[in-house]
């Protein structure tokens, strides 16, 4: 190859490299670097088996009530999710991003087919020894309260709503009670809340046919802050007396000391 030919070949290689660089910078290329979404499908309709498909493709068939399917590696953006039972078909579009539960459930009032509600999973960090408890209302009951060990944690949660709290890791006796009083609609049931995890509870079903139940899903979350401190070292100069008064003798020498130390 002559020098002019080599130079031209080199410039073409450089051009190709430049083209490759710019194409990876296009939105399509960036999407591959973005964190993958985690989508779960929750079958919250009692007493039936459901076939689940996404974007026209079968994902799982015969999903029983209370089953959680996933995580599905769906790309961020719009997708169609379909649920089929012998009696009905529900087709819905969802916008996928982050960690989410796509929940099939009956609405609060009478309906001929179930509805779909998407719940975002809060997987942000919790303190060590703590877990995030999230309770969702997807049952055929009016607004309800959530109690833990007999104490009301949340009030007036309606169908399609949820509540969430970070609590010390422990097993709690959790109940769903009608807002305004009455016997528990569900529970009390022992619910372990693990440290470093999101524990999701979906109340499902209807009292009229005795199908009230709970779906429990546990997802890991990071922890923050480190372990409980073993020591807190908050003072070094000896300028304060035990009663809170200032040690005037030390205080007068303090500026001299700091000057000597060159700080």
């Amino acid at each position: 190859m002559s020098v002019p030919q080599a130079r031209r070949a080199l410039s073409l290689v450089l051009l190709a490299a430049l083209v490759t660089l710019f194409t990876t910078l296009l939105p399509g290329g960036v999407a591959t670097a973005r964190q993958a979404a985690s989508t779960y499908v929750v079958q919250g309709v009692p007493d039936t088996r459901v076939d689940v498909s996404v974007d026209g493709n079968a994902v799982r068939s015969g999903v029983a009530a209370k089953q959680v399917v996933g995580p599905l590696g769906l790309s961020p953006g719009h997708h169609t999710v379909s649920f089929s039972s012998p009696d009905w078909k529900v087709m819905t579009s969802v916008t996928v991003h982050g960690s989410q539960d796509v929940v099939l459930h009956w609405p609060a009032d009478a309906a001929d087919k179930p509805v779909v509600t998407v719940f975002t999973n809060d997987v942000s960090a919790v303190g060590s020894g703590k877990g995030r408890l999230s309770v969702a209302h997807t049952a055929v009951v009016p607004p309800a309260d959530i109690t833990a060990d007999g104490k009301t944690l949340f009030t007036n949660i309606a169908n399609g709503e949820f509540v969430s709290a970070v609590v010390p890791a422990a097993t709690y006796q959790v109940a769903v009670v009608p807002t305004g009083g009455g016997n528990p609609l569900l529970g009390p049931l022992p619910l372990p809340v693990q440290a470093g995890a999101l524990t999701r509870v979906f109340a499902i079903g209807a009292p009229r046919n005795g199908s009230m139940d709970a779906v429990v899903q546990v997802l890991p979350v990071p922890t923050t802050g480190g372990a409980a401190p073993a020591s807190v070292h908050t003072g070094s100069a000896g300028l304060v007396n035990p009663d809170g008064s200032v040690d005037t003798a030390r205080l007068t020498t303090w500026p001299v000391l700091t000057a000597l130390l060159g700080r």
Partner: protein
Amino acid sequence: MRPSDVAAAVLAAALLGACSASGAGTSATGNQAAHVDAAARPAAVATPAASQERTERPVSVTLPSGRVLPVDVVRTLPGGALAIPRDIHRAGWWAGSSRLGDPFGSIVLAAHVDSFTQGVGPAAELLSTRPGARVHLAARHRAQSYRVTSVRVVPRADLRREEVVFSAAGSRRLVLITCGGAYDAARGGYQDNVVVVARPTRHS
């Protein structure tokens, strides 16, 4: 092969490579493009109940004298010591402790009582704080007032055994920690921690 052929081949390869690199990640359905059936209605998006507490970390603390300290987020270091802001005019909030709006446990703040470089700190007033004194926390959107219920002097080596101070359980409380007690330069300086516990004055 002529250079222009090479160019065409390389350009084609680059574009094809870009096409397969772009589009969907590992889609379970194998579809490159999102497929939304026209018959599909948008799913409802769950909302938090109106009673849902928004939890926030403290941004400032107002001591009984009215002195306000900004609050930094701090963590426990590998050796077990809580990292305290070096500036004695700032307090540290332990990120493993509770936030404003959490239903249980201690919100833990600590600040230096003094330093060699800055002198006596605002936290020194905690050594003469009495039960009944008022403390206030402000967060980005919410705030909470507290009333002091106890002021205790705990030998520093015993702090880790104190049950309530760092506990995540039990009814909400605010815990303020600094140093105090006898000072012995040869034995590590201040011998004690001063622990102030305060309870919320109204439901937050």
